[in-house]
């Protein structure tokens, strides 16, 4: 089985660990990816903050490339990219005139036929059915699944899980043996794209999430978004400085947790690249 994958910029750089774990999982389950050829950045927060048309054109080019190369299904591990792609498809479907204008801008035909899967949807569809037979090291930890914003909102557009207290990631984590906690910060914002420009805000918001998870006894926070990961992991020194704390709770990508549970090494799933030491293995 061959899927398209749109890794997005983070996965080639600051979220290499995420990338490694996604590919390691695919390999372990005999799944093969085809990268969307010559893909570009989706524009992320910057584009829609400064230029609406650009924020639609960049994802449209990606989707058009996927269509052109016959990729009927593309998995988008980065929640931010996923959100931009789905929102773009929604906007262009809603407004045929806009669709024509964007097609002209990207100099490509855009029809909006490719199916877009986020990482949990991909896991649900292709990993979960064969998970039981591969499970060798149950992930016996108490975890806080952190969905953030972009995986579940705007709910009416994404049509994925439920906006308040989503469950899909919890279900996957319970399948590999984890105990998932109920905590209100599940879909609170980590500060997102303000990481560099307003580190103070990111430290504040991410700190609240970490405190909530630790307070309720979680051993790890599980994420599915490179931006959330970098804010909760890479920004940990800033967070601890801001809140005058010493939070040590590790932050794992959901794919890393599954990887460990099926017996992949910590190196293989990129755990060594984390800032906060992961004592779980």
């Amino acid at each position, binding site marked *: 089985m061959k899927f398209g994958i749109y890794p997005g910029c983070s996965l080639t750089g600051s979220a290499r660990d995420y990338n490694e774990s996604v590919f390691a999982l695919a390999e372990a389950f005999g799944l093969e990816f085809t990268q969307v050829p010559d893909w570009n950045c989706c524009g992320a927060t910057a584009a829609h903050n400064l230029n609406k048309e650009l924020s639609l054109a960049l994802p449209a080019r990606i989707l058009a490339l996927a269509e052109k190369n016959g990729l009927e299904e593309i998995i988008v591990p980065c929640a931010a990219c996923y959100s931009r792609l789905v929102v773009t498809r929604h906007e262009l479907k809603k407004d045929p005139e806009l669709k024509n204008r964007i097609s002209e801008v990207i100099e490509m035909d855009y029809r909006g036929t490719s199916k877009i899967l986020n990482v949990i949807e991909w896991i649900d569809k292709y990993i979960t059915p064969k998970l039981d037979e591969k499970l060798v090291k149950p992930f016996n930890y108490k975890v806080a699944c952190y969905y953030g914003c972009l995986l579940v909102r705007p709910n009416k557009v994404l049509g994925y899980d*439920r*906006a*308040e*207290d989503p469950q899909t990631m919890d279900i996957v984590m319970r399948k590999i043996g984890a105990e998932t906690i*109920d*905590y*209100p910060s599940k879909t609170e914002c980590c500060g997102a794209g303000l990481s560099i420009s307003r580190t103070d805000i990111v430290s504040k918001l991410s700190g609240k999430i970490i405190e909530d998870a630790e*307070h309720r006894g979680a051993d790890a926070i599980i994420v599915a978004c490179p931006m959330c990961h970098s804010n909760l992991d890479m920004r940990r020194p800033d967070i601890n400085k801001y809140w005058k704390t010493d939070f040590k709770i590790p932050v794992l990508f959901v794919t890393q947790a599954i990887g460990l549970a099926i017996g992949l090494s910590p190196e293989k799933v990129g755990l060594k690249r984390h800032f906060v030491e992961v004592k779980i293995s």
Partner: protein
Amino acid sequence: MARIGVFVCHCGENISATVDCGKVAETIGKLKHVAYSTDYKYMCSDPGQTIIKDAIKEHNLTGVVVSACSPRMHEPTFRKACAEGGLNPFLCEMANLREHCSWVHEKNDLTTEKAIDIVRSQVEKVKLNSALQPIKVPVTRTALVIGGGIAGIQSALDIANCGHKVVMVERSPSIGGHMSQLSETFPTLDCSQCILTPRMVEVAQHPNITLYTYAEIESVEGFIGNFKVKIRKKAKSLDEKICTGCGLCTTKCPQKKIPNEFEQGMGMRPAIYIPFPQAVPNRPVIDREHCTYYIKGKCKVCEIVCPTKAIRFDQPDEILELEIGAIVVSTGFDIKHADFFPEYGYGKYKDIIDGLQFERLASASGPTTGAILRPSDGQVPKNIVFIACAGSRDPAKGIAYCSKICCMYTAKHAMLYKHKVHEGKAHVFYMDIRSGGKNYDEFVRRAIEEDHVNYIRGRVSTIYERDGKLIVKGVDTLLGAQPVEIVADMVVLATAGIASSGAEELAQKLHVSYDSHKFFAEAHPKLKPVETNTAGIFLAGACQNPKDIPDTVSQASGAAVKVAALFSQSELTREPLVAAVNRSGPPMYSTCVGCFLCQSVCPYQAIEREDFKTRDGKIIKTVAKINEGLCQGCGTCVALCRSKSIDLQGYSNNQVYAEVVALLNEY
């Protein structure tokens, strides 16, 4: 030759503000066969009607078109005026220039042109009208009241006290409705059960009222004065005549873990139960869904302990068929439950309750005998939050309307809490305080000024649990959206009032209209608030929209008067707008081919067979014949008839065709 009179009404300025009424009258006056055409400020007024009556005589009119408001509003008025002027009332038609023209379009030439077209089509139609005689039908002087809450109780008592028979049908085992669950009522804080219970008993004892509890409406057929109603009396699994209501069975029933509906799930009840101590009738029923005997085939403890041997396990449901003259619908309302609110935890936190649950907590007969205690651990909440507009005025959740009662009962709840927990703190999140009503706003002010309830203007964004407390996050919009975070022990949601479950199915059985929220629709928002679109069926209480007790009781009495007025006559006259199969003689002839397809589509079984016979009695042909007493004039048979042998009086093929042609062609 036809001599038509046309009367164009200005309706004050309601029509003339956008339609040039003078021009309409003038243009129509030039039409062939229009003998008289005029316009006047208020056609429905006394002088207006006199103009019509005089013109009928003076111009020897053979037909009248009143161009004014909707015929649904004033057709009876003008038909009566015509009759008084000496013209058969069915030779009068109305052109709807107000609701369908002046009120919905801008002022311009097109609007006036449309008005002219509408009037012209009615002129062409009325030319083809024929003089008809009203049909007389008898009235069964028995009323059916559906729903035994305070609305139904009031209606039933009022009708019964007028000397008419009433049948009351209540689907739960006792009458009393939501009012019987309430603790104290605003704005007087008098005990709800104390004022309700005597009325419940009065219903049970009234010689004119027959009460069927644990019963539902199966079907309704017929029409005003002559409904045929089937009622399903669900098996109570006991013989009510023998049962003394001692209640021994209810104490001995081994199945005791069924959430108690009356306590809003905050207590448990056995499978054989009396819903509450003051229930009317005070007899138990067996809840077969939860009864061990019906599930596993053995137990029968109740049968063994019953001193009068009243238990009947094999009792079947009973279907009653009743002749009814008028119906009052008083099926009440439900409320949304806490699980409707994702942002408040989908109902997963035990200490987030709804308004009715709080009523039960505050009620002396409730699960805590009136103490305000947290459902989770039975502790007295020191800090309590009330959230108004929970679900109401929330289009995103599908409920755009204001539930009307919540502002008042929230103030009452906060007040009751403060009266019972003096050292406690009560906070109310609200958007607006809607306290219109006698002594209502004074009541809310009392909560704020005397009981120091902390009113915060803002909607709560989210509630979550932390260390056994509920964290309520909102803002104070009067302080520039300043964040407010309350660490609460208990939260009460003033959840939206919604239509009672099963309202839609009932409306369909009754053929009455209902709105998109499944509330029953009144015939006119202002002038017919108690009537439905179906003659002989009236509304009382919260089945129409959420209402408080005084409003409900007023409307219930209103509905009762409508029924009493109907029952004051022994016969009703009905519009003769019924179908007819053509006949011509001699000796007799009809184009009907006798296929009787019409019979299969008629919803009223109004189509009979008639034999044409020779002088010596030999049948030549069998054709369809309409029973005028049964026909309601829907016209489905007309559209279906292949040989065009049936026509509908008032909406004949020729009339409708003339309307279409006149609407589309200027001449």
